[in-house]
């Protein structure tokens, strides 16, 4: 019997090794693999913006992105809210530009892969998106005519090298826009169609340059991706790629009982779609009905895919052509945000309603009905341990 202790030790070692190795079903492994960053396809060309992959355009776009001259009072740039060292967001419940807006700033990693922009999808391309805050009185608060003049004065040569000659500005007002003040609207209406079209063309090019820059902002691999890679190959996870029991439980809940993966799917953890999940409105903010109101806005946008300023042909406009235009499911529906990096950028939801991931998980577990429209989510029985595990898993989606 002198070998018995050795036998016991061997048995213990085998059992312990079995416990340490995460145990996933084939279906679970398949789902985990579908979430890994390694499955993210390379960025598709954007045929609606023929400058999308032109380096000089991206360089000009980057200059414009950080330039506070791109605002009415010279104090606000894209980077005021999309902070480069903060995942291109601002940590505030609602963005503050020239004024206080009613929506949370969205981070930009992988933004060029979105079919719809803003929380409600009121724009259908990255370049059309970039134009919207420039004229929003609460954000950069400028007007397209002033931006076109600024382009000529400040960046004339760089602009013309990329986009060709700027229009003749003689006889054009300094400030004019169909979306501006009454005086700016009057000035806009007083111009000829040719002048308005020329200004819109310059304005669209500003958006196309900024979009070319933003295409370079991509998600980085996280602890989860290293774990997923090892799970896929069957290699033993080492270092920070090894998940704790709590993180494994959280991942299993995420792709299982908690149904998170229903909407937060694919390598960006988003279905790029709009859902009412019963997130409550914020008191004192203007009424916000989400997607239902954005449909008319994107249809009316002269810079949308079916408009005159798109490059390429209309075959790129499928999302706009086949969008759902009506229906109760659009009421208070907001875009599914990516969860990559979410753990380090509270507050959460479209108006920063929740200050921690714990609150977010509690909201989805409770599934309170929506103030308007119908919430798609259903109550979940989650123990305190399971809630903590979900939060622990979400934290693995950071570098």
């Amino acid at each position: 019997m002198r070998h018995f202790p050795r036998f016991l030790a061997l048995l213990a070692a085998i059992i312990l090794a079995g416990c340490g190795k995460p145990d996933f079903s084939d279906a679970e492994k398949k789902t985990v693999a579908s979430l890994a960053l390694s499955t993210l396809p390379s960025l598709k060309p954007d045929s609606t913006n023929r400058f999308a992959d032109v380096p000089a355009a991206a360089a000009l776009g980057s200059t414009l992105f950080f330039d506070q001259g791109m605002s009415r009072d010279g104090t606000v740039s894209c980077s005021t809210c999309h902070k480069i060292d903060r995942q291109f967001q601002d940590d505030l419940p609602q963005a503050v530009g020239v004024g206080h807006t009613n929506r949370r700033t969205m981070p930009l990693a992988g933004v060029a892969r979105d079919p719809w922009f803003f929380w409600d999808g009121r724009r259908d391309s990255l370049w059309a998106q970039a134009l919207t805050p420039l004229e929003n009185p609460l954000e950069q608060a400028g007007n397209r005519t002033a931006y076109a003049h600024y382009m000529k004065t400040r960046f004339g040569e760089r602009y013309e090298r990329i986009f060709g000659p700027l229009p003749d500005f003689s006889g054009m007002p300094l400030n004019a826009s169909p979306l501006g003040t009454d005086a700016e609207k009057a000035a806009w209406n007083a111009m000829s169609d040719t002048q308005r079209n020329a200004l819109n063309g310059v304005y669209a090019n500003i958006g196309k340059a900024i979009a070319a820059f933003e295409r370079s902002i991509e998600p980085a691999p996280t602890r989860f991706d290293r774990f997923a890679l090892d799970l896929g190959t069957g290699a033993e996870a080492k270092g920070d790629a090894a998940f704790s029991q709590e993180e494994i439980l959280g991942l299993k809940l995420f792709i299982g009982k908690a149904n998170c993966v229903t909407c937060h799917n694919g390598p960006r953890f988003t279905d790029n779609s709009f859902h009412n999940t019963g997130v409550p409105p914020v008191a004192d903010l203007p009424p916000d009905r989400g997607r239902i109101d954005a449909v008319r806005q994107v249809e009316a946008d002269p810079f949308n895919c079916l408009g005159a300023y798109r490059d390429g042909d209309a075959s790129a406009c499928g999302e706009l052509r086949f969008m759902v235009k009506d229906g109760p499911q659009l009421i208070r529906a907001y875009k599914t945000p990516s969860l990559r990096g979410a753990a380090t950028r509270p507050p959460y939801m479209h108006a920063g309603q929740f200050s921690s991931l714990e609150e977010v998980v509690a909201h989805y577990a409770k599934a309170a009905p929506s103030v308007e429209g119908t919430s798609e989510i259903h109550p979940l029985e989650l123990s305190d341990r399971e809630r903590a595990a979900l939060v622990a898993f979400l934290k693995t989606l950071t570098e």
Partner: protein
Amino acid sequence: MASLWRYLLAGLGLAALLVGILAVVYLTAPRSSQPAGPDVSRTKNTDNGLFVASFLPERGVVRQGELESWLLTLKTKAGAPVEGAAIAISGGMPQHNHGLPTSPQATDYLGDGRYRIEGVKFTMSGWWQLHFAISATAGSDTVLFNVVL
């Protein structure tokens, strides 16, 4: 020699234990696929038997999250192509109680009873339903196709 036997016995015991553990793990593992899924056949008689309809992805594969074109082929019972049909499409995910994320439309008639259905997009894995209301000179009928991703 006795110790060798003991090693062999211990080895056998361990192997049996391992088989036991594996069996328990396998038997208690959650079943992800439903045993009886919806009917996913790609060719069906329409609900009132007016037409035979086939619904297939134009490029042969279905990819989650992408706008895709599908082909709806309509034939009469006798096998003649149904031409000039008006087609209305609706659908959704019955288990999630929501509709389609896009509004697919019949955009082209390709001849031989084939209609191109553009704007089909499945944003989630799971059970989707596409419902077609078909109106042609022979009459009106409906058909439902299930797609499971």
